[in-house]
């Protein structure tokens, strides 16, 4: 156990330079001038991004818009087990399940409707954690707009994976 050590940060005013504004003004100008010259001529480590022409590179864990993944034959992997709906803290997922008519085994479930209210969603990724089939993952897409509230409730058609997903579009998904 380390002892409690304190450091006093009091800074009494010192000297003529500080009293007369001179020292701090010169020091302050030196700091801003250094930043200006370095950004203008040198390394150009300007933090500003010219969005939307230039976009930030997000990590492979970025929690963006959801994707309902598909099997090789193009059908949904989702088995309508309601795990994501239960785990959702924002209660934004609504699933309606039914029997799969084309199933080879008896009583195979299938979602007839799978809706996510993207305006309610808080993008916490708990649905992805809850899914036991890797049927729900997230993309890095985060800039979507809607003109009405109804438009923000997206169903299977909008969420379903369309073709193979590019690695740089894929966001939050199970890792181990």
């Amino acid at each position: 156990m380390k002892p409690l050590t304190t450091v006093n940060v009091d800074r009494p005013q010192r000297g003529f330079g500080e009293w007369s504004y001179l020292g701090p003004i010169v020091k302050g100008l030196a700091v801003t001038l250094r930043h200006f010259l370095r950004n203008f001529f040198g390394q150009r480590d300007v933090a500003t991004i010219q969005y939307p022409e230039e976009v930030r590179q997000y990590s492979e864990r970025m929690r963006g818009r959801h994707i309902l993944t598909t099997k090789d034959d193009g059908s949904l992997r989702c088995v309508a087990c309601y795990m994501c709906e239960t785990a959702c803290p924002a209660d934004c997922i609504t699933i309606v399940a039914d029997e799969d008519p084309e199933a080879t085994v008896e009583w195979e479930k299938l979602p007839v409707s799978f809706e996510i209210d993207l305006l309610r969603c808080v993008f916490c990724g708990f649905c992805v954690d809850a899914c036991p089939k890797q049927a729900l993952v997230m993309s890095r897409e985060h800039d979507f707009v809607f003109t009405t509230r109804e438009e923000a409730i997206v169903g299977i058609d909008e969420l379903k994976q369309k073709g193979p997903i590019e690695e740089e579009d894929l966001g939050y998904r199970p890792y181990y």
Partner: protein
Amino acid sequence: MTVSNPDTATPNPLARFIPGSEDLKVITAADGFTEITADRSRLIGVLRVLRDRPELDCNLLLDVCGVDYPMNEHRFEVVYHLTSLAKGHRIRVRVPVDEDDPRVPTASGIWKAADWFERETWDLMGIRFDGHPNLRRILTHEAFQGHALRKDYDPEKRWVLTEAETFVPDWVTEPDEEEDFETQIINIGPSHPATHGTLRIVARLDGEIITRAECEIGYLHRCFEKMSETHSWSEVIPYTDRLNYCSSMINGVGYALAVEHMLGIEAPPRAQVVRVILSEFSRIMDHAVCLGAALVDVGALTNFWYFFQPREEIYTLLESCAGGRLTVSYARIGGLAHEVPADFEDQVRYLLGYIPKFVDDVDKLVSTNRIFRGRTEGIGALSAEEALAWGWTGPCLRACGVPYDLRRARPYLGYENYDFDIPVASTGDSYARYLVRLEEMRQSLRIIEQAIDNLPDGPVITDNHHAALPPKSKVYTEMEALIWHFKLIYEGIKVPAGSAYLATEGANGELGYYVVSDGGGKPYRIKVRPPCFAIFQAYPHLLEGHLVPDAIAILSSLNIIAGELDR
């Protein structure tokens, strides 16, 4: 229903100092608190002894809250949490209250801090505090019907508010005969660029001097506590992100620690060190936002950009770990959501080299600048005794000269193994608060440096599947893991019945979670002790005698985060 799992075998060492302790139940609770159950007729006597007797010396009132047990003989319980800075002990006083007469004498005459906490208890639980000087609703609107945290209040209930803000303090209309000039009432906020969130200040001016002020809060109230009662224990984590949104990681870690304590589990060593690293980075971000904005408010704009540049880089680190920048939701009960990315160590070391430049630049730009010093020195000063009476913690208390930091006072997450100093200042004014925060950023970097050097290998989440989801690779392949997965999602974590108060050092001070469980899959009651709340209640009193521009300088130096203030 019993909500305590006490250690009754050993007599409590503090009991002998409390007169009449034979009739009071004095026990040692499982979370280390000395727990006193007092009747309301004896409450004030007990509280006075607790504060005044030198052996007990409870100078800091942490929290007052109410809990509703509809099935009990006495329906309500008012819970006081106290601590002694000198002795280090912590005391909880529980007062049972009947449903037909929900009244308790006020403690606001003993600790000023009780003022707003009691108003909140009245507002949300409907318990009256006799003798309270200003017992009005605080978080909900005046027109709100009922008390939201009572168990019989339907969480689905919605109110449509049709009337505008009606609150006008009584003293606004009273003529003040002593003053020669005509006074003027001004209204700052609720939506004002300088209020950093939505809060309203009504102030009376005599010329340019504020002679009296009062604050109105609750504009961002979402009733976090009621929402968490309707969700499972793990689903509360995304909600905690939205308390202090400038340092969301610290909130999640604090909550996870409280629930882990109730479950009797501990996160693996690697998870603990990663939690320390990310919490300290969050603290740096929080201070950067606070100082950047505070400097803008006094007219120094450049610093805002110098601080936001490293903040963006820290967000990139958090995003590569958790997937979210502002609301990370990275902590889990029992550890962390995922292993950190492969380049975690490189990223942390890069930031350790990157951040100090910006801190030094700001230090050079403003710390010795006479204009800045003139704007902040002696402004909003508070003495150490006053600050403790108001329930201040964190950087604001340390600026008054009290070296109280939970990372040293009650270490958690292995903070006892790190070398760091607690910055203190003596003047307690806005300038001191600035200096303390600046130094704390440097100390946080020191902690991160030691933590990353000693980052152990191993898992980041416990393998106890009563608390944590099994790894996905097992869920896809093993029946056993799939069953655990289903049970945890559908039933939630079963936290044993009991209660615990666990506090961590948030960026603004002591962030406490008082957690009550009835053994079910959902929290029975969660009370957050937000550090801002205690700090902000002193604000109207700090204003008296200052100019209007000073009011803004004080407000930003206190770092009020509305998400945490209003919950």
